[in-house]
């Protein structure tokens, strides 16, 4: 399937209806608007699952969290599944601090996210 790269988000389409967005740098207030736009653009258009792969994200602040919360809400409205994968310990910590770790579907690997 296809592969695209925006300035810091790699986009893969491993299966029909599945899109994987992989930010390739830290996500803070300067980056989250672009992530928000990318997720919005990919949602819909026949996509039934959006995977956000955080393997290369070593740091995320609350603007990144807010982006993902908004994406999760939009996914629910549009019958799309949003799955987050490959989160490192430091990024995981901010989900726990904000008590949002149980709000999202979070899995360990991209394969697991795609097959979920």
């Amino acid at each position: 399937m296809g592969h695209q790269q925006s300035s810091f988000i790699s986009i893969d389409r491993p299966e029909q209806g599945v899109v994987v967005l992989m930010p390739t740098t830290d996500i803070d207030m300067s980056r989250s608007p672009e992530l928000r736009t990318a997720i919005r653009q990919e949602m819909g258009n026949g996509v039934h699952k959006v995977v956000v792969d955080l393997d290369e994200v070593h740091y995320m602040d609350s603007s990144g969290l807010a982006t993902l919360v908004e994406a999760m809400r939009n996914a629910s409205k549009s019958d799309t599944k949003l799955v987050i994968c490959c989160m490192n310990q430091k990024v995981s910590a901010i989900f726990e601090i904000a008590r949002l770790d149980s709000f999202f579907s979070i899995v360990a690997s991209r394969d697991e996210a795609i097959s979920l």
Partner: protein
Amino acid sequence: MQDRAEIELKLISDPMYLCGARELVGCIARRIGFDDMDCSKIALAVDEALSNIIRHGYNKVFDRPIWIGISPIKPSADSIGGIVITIDDEAKQVDPCAMKGRCLEDIRPGGLGVHIIQEVMDEVRYEKRDSVGMRLVMTKRAPRAEGSPRLSDRKGCAVTSMGSKSSKTPMGP
């Protein structure tokens, strides 16, 4: 007791400089003796504070001044040392008591910054500056680490009282 922070950084309110501020604070915290996770959390607290100033204080005007001051707290008999970080701005003044984290039961985008700062740091205090703007003073105590020397162990390093600092030598113009 010293009057000024040992490290001071002035930056403009452009989000592109958040990463530099995080790196600086994280590096100093590591040198003081915090572990990787704590360094990341301290950097996160600074990032959230700066983001709040940019977003709410300066309404996303990206060329306004922000000052960051960093001082280690020297280990003593009744203290294990740590780090004090002050962040000053020239944004609109608000009631410090109004600076509270929101209810987390209400899951919605945004509004998490103050909660994160309060959760991550040991002491958090907002003040109105004398002339204009706000000051945030955050303190984090370090665990005692064996091995590598600490920046705060060096001779002449004093505990900074941010209260006295605020009245004596405020950062900025």
